[in-house]
């Protein structure tokens, strides 16, 4: 079983209240070095068998049509999840 990651972020010019709320909380918790936060979405799509170019093409199209709202969001990455990431996802924090 393969997996494809699709990353979607709000367009840079669009207000991100979620990211702002996090950014506001960080200094209070003693995290001083972080100057801004943007929050987006990460989708992991499971496909049968190995990830093929056809799968990736499908994922890209799904990313543009269903997984993101082009009025306010950008698809920033579509790529096969490599094995190291799969094992990370299954347990140990990176």
């Amino acid at each position, binding site marked *: 079983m393969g997996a494809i990651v699709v990353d979607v972020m709000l367009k840079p010019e669009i207000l991100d*209240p*979620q990211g702002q*709320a*996090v950014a506001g*909380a960080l200094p*209070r918790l003693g995290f001083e070095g972080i100057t801004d936060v943007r*929050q987006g979405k990460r989708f992991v799509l499971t496909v049968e068998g190995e990830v093929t170019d056809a799968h990736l093409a499908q994922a890209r199209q799904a990313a543009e049509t269903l997984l993101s709202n082009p009025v306010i969001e950008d698809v920033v990455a579509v790529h096969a999840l490599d094995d190291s990431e799969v094992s990370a996802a299954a347990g140990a924090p990176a």
Partner: protein
Amino acid sequence: MRVGVVTFPGSLDDRDAQRAVRAAGAEPVALWHGDADLHGVDAVVLPGGFSYGDYLRCGAIARFAPVMDRLVPAAQGGLPVLGICNGFQVLCESHLLPGALIRNDHRKFVCRDQRLRIENASTAWTGDYAAGQEIVVPLKNGEGGYVADERTLDALEAEGRVVARYLGDNPNGSYRDIAGVSNERGNVVGLMPHPEHAVEPGFGPTTDGLAFFTSVLHQVVSA
């Protein structure tokens, strides 16, 4: 008897909780999230709302408020604490209660009059109910699905820490229809539905919620 009600930025039902405390015959005391002081109250309500917009995870940022630095040890020491809706979420994020609340399974906010069964009538907040009693109070949430791993759920059931359960259709996908849970000692209770919206005839579906607030009064007085 003085019951503190904490206001976080984005709390919405804080005045409602104060009204319910008053209706039960106790004195409500407004507590401020940024003030690391419980002002000697005998019990605390964490009210509903969207603290910090609930943008990250509901209750996640509120958990780090200065008032929580005082509240967490006090609760561990036996202070009665009731978290309603967002308050329940804050209690879970603070690890005062097990499990977590996630997005409703149907992915929509739901507001309705909800039938519940009080499963445990011996916590600090449910003593004035009879075990097994059915009540109707408002439910309103977008992230009310109670989740925990199987082991935790089994333990909660075995120890009688499921305080209230949904009757009829499960409104949000909560595991095992759980509407509220308590800590081991029974002084900390988290509840997704809103008893504070059912304390006054004519405003809310019933007055079934009032007993949560009278319960704590009786328990503190007798303790």
